[in-house]
Every structure is written in C-alpha cells, then in structure tokens.
C-alpha cells in the first residue's frame, strides 16, 4: 500500500530514491546558525483557517488580532472577529506555530466555519488582507480547487513574494488543482512519516518541496481541548514556525532566502 502522492517522497523506503537523496548543491547549514537563539519576537504570523481560540493555553496569549471574512451584499469583506475558533483546526495550527516560535504574534483570519464554507473568494480576500498587513509569514492549511481562481491566487502569491511575505501552504493530497499550494512562490508542505516535529525534509522535485511532521500530532483543539490528528494541515505550521524563527534571526531576509535556509537545514533523507 502506498501513501498519499505528495507525501510519498518523504516516507521511509522512498527517501533514499530520486532527487531527495541528491548531493546538496551547497553545504548543509547548521540550525544554530539559521535560527538558533531566537523565539520569533517582533514578527507576526497570520493563520487563515477556522479562527484561533484566544484564551487557549496553547496560544500563550500571543493572539493579537482576530478578523473574519464575511459576505456583505455578496462581496467578501474583512471584519473584526471575537477570538473564537468555530472548529478547532485554526487553534491547532496556531498552537503548533506558537510551540516553535513562542514570541511571535499571531493574527487569525477566519474563513471557515459552519456559516462559511471557505469559499475561494473569501480565501482570496483573507490572503489579500494578510499581505496588506505586512505580516512576516502566512500559514495556509487549506487550498482552493477552483480553476477559475488560478490567476487571482497566482497574482496574490507573487505579490506576497515581492512584498516580503512568506506563504506556507499545506499541499492537498487530492489530485487536481490546489491553489496557492502548487505555486513556486509559496513554501508547500506535505506530511512525512516520522513522528518528530524537529524533522523535515526538502524535496527538490516539485510541486511539494517540504515534508514535515503531520502524523499523530497532539494539537490544541476547540474549547480549550486537545486532539490527536493526522494531515498535511498540521505539517504546514511546523514549517511556518521554523520559517518564522529564520526570519526572526535574519531581519530583511527574503522569501526565497528563507526557503533556501529551510532546505539547507533540512534533515538528510537517511537520517531517520
């Protein structure tokens, strides 16, 4: 039995194959040099998801702003939200980021929930807003399958890139379009099969470039609770957290330099 398409390159038995196991084009960068001694202070990470529970212990009081996208006369607009998570998923994502970059501020942009099906337009509006806020990193543990929104998402991914905003996007394991996770300007992440948050792999074969911890992850959940979950949704914030540390350590670093450091600090495929 195989594993999901985009996770395949990152699982035992496959990691020794193909380009994942190539010689590094330049030397490995030690993690201490890349992000040692920093905690993400001074940076803001936006989480586009189901909201973040403001008082959840796993968030450590770092949630500084909550907004949501709602439809006004059929047009999506960003309005203030009440710091609640309608599902639990966004709190899980925020908690993972906080566990890695504990001093980074979090901003929640809610596009999911029982009253909002995460329509593509709401997602676009949220992403546009986050880029406009000048946050350092945006975590996207969701994607749009709308072929019609390809150009809009592509334009926003490029705008983020040139605005020095790093987009970290969970790959969708279901075949077909998945935006913006398939774009080169974002950092795309799938789950690997190692139960260790400090292990990530770089895969130079697109479209999914990073494999991170996403199996049996103990996460924060709604109503102050916790759960154990599996999915690419939970791999992305592990990379977003590390990227936040890298950006905290090296002020002014660009998205592509951040991605290069993520790759240069990745585990060797035979390390585990």
């Amino acid at each position, binding site marked *: 039995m195989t594993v999901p*398409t985009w996770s395949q390159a990152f699982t035992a038995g496959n990691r020794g194959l193909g380009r994942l196991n190539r010689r590094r084009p330049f030397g490995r960068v030690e993690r201490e040099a890349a992000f040692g001694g920093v905690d993400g202070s001074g940076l803001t990470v936006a989480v586009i998801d189901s909201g973040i529970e403001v008082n959840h212990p796993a968030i450590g009081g770092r949630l500084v702003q909550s907004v949501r996208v709602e439809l006004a006369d059929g047009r999506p607009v960003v309005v203030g939200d009440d710091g609640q998570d309608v599902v639990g998923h966004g709190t899980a994502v925020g908690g993972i980021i906080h566990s890695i970059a504990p001093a980074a501020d979090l901003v929640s942009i809610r596009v999911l929930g029982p009253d909002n099906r995460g329509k593509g337009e709401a997602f676009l509006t949220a992403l546009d807003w986050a880029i406009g806020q000048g946050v350092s990193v945006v975590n996207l543990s969701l994607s749009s399958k709308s072929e019609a929104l390809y150009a809009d998402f592509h334009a926003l991914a490029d705008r983020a890139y040139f605005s020095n905003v790093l987009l970290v996007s969970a790959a969708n*394991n279901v075949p077909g379009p998945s935006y913006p996770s398939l774009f080169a300007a974002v950092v795309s992440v799938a789950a690997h099969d190692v139960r260790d948050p400090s292990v990530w792999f770089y895969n130079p074969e697109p479209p999914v470039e990073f494999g991170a911890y996403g199996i049996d992850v103990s996460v924060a959940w709604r109503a102050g*609770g916790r759960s154990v979950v599996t*999915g690419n949704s939970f791999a992305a914030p592990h990379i977003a957290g590390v990227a936040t540390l890298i950006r905290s350590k090296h002020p002014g670093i660009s998205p592509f330099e951040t991605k290069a450091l993520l790759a240069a600090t990745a585990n060797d495929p035979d390390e585990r």
Partner: protein
Amino acid sequence: MSPGRAGGRPSRGPRNPASTAAAARSAAADARSTAAAALAVLKAVTARVDTAARLEPAAGDAILRSVVDAAAVLIRAEAASIALHDPATDTLTFRVAAGEQGQGVVGLSIRPGDGVAGYVFATGEPLAIGETTVDPRFRRAAAEQTGYVPRSLLAVPLADDAGTMGVLEVLDRRDGAPFDLADMDAASVFARQATIAIRATGLERSTAALLREALLAIAGGERATDVEALVTGLTRELEPATWALADAVARVRDASPEQIDLVIDLLDALVRRTPRAASRYRAPGR
C-alpha cells in the same frame, strides 16, 4: 389536463372578430396555449421524476455501497460511510454505510463546515482524528443518535477537477490503531472510485441548480424566492430525470418576450398551487 389553469383559460372564439381587443386577446390566447404546453411539459416531466426518484437512488446507491463495503474491508475498519452534498439544501447527507455499526448514520444530514465530514468537505483536506472522545469537533450527540460512537475516524473528500461533492468517512481500525497516511491514501483511492461512479451516474448532478438557473434566466433574479419554491416543489428528491425538465425549461429561453411573460405568470400559478413547496423553502434543511 391542467385543471388549475381553468380559471385563467382565455375565452377564445369569434364573438368580436373585428375588434382590436379581440385581436389582442387572440395573441394572448396563442401565448397562453404556449404556456399551457410548457406547463404540460413540466407536469409530465415532474411525474417522470417521481417515478425516477423511486428507481434511481437504489441503482446509484448500490455503486456507492460497494465502494464503502470495499473501503471498510480493505482498510480493516469497523465501518465506512459516504455523505453527498446537496446544493439545493446546502447539506451533507449520509447516503450509504458499511458495517453493522455504521448503518445508523444513513439519512443523517449535517451542514458543510459542521463536524468532521463537514470540515473535510469545506476544506478539501483529508483528516484523520484519533481519540475522538476528547475532540469537541466530533459531535458526540450526533454520533449517539446513530447508535455508534467511534474511537477514531478518517475522512477524505470526494473531489475531482470539477469540485468537491461529498466525503468518505472510515471509522475505527479493527486493530485499534489510529489511522495513518497509508490508510488515508487507501481511503483516497476509494474516494476517487466513488467520485468517478457518482459522476458517471449523475447522482451528484444538481438538477435543482440547473433548473433554478434556467428559471432565473427567464424570470429574473428578483423572483428568486418563487423560483426556489417551485424548484423545491418540483424536484423533491433530485434525480437524473430532472435534467429533462431542466432542458425543457431551458428551451423556453428562446421564446418571445410575451411568451416569457406568460412563463412568469405560470411560475406564479405553480407556486400558488404548491403550498408544500413554499413552506419547505421557508424552512430549509428540515
């Protein structure tokens, strides 16, 4: 033929053959007979939809049932089920289930974004959840309605390039272990099979959406409420034969402005005659 139109039937005939009023009446009569014909088509097709509604779900659900049976056996799970999205009511309804414990879920409807299935439907992201007893998203109350509370579950979207149409859920591995990436991939394979089967049989086709689109094109957006009531009343359990109805209505787009006016009148008449449809529209999801 159309007893409800009796009161509106024009008094055609040669009583005032020379008057302009009569000429106008004659034109109106032509248009009304076109409308009557359209009504006849609607009624005939609706009757066939009722028949199809009794026949088609069994055939379509049989395919889905074979998929959930295979998924449960090959993933070695206690139960599996498929929920399909109905755009007319914007609900996810569990259509089929495998495993004795899973049967209670059939017929259960949830909102997109609600519960694990709703979340996976809304995001398109597969998700495995263990220790569901501590997962507030897991709607224990709803699960208890079905008589079966799983320890862990795996949910993958039924999706293809055209969009997400539902969710495949797999409950409780028989060995008690949590679901892993390999299970997720296996479930995704079954989800793809189900998706192809659903597309092939047209089970997912939103006949109501097509019909609504056609009627709105004729009647205009300001009559959306009437259209909604009519569509709900005519289609009930939506089945492929309703495509014929939608096609029939779509052809009316080529009609003259006068004829279109009359189709609008027709809408009025039909809405008045389907009070159940109107009340169902006011209380969606009930």
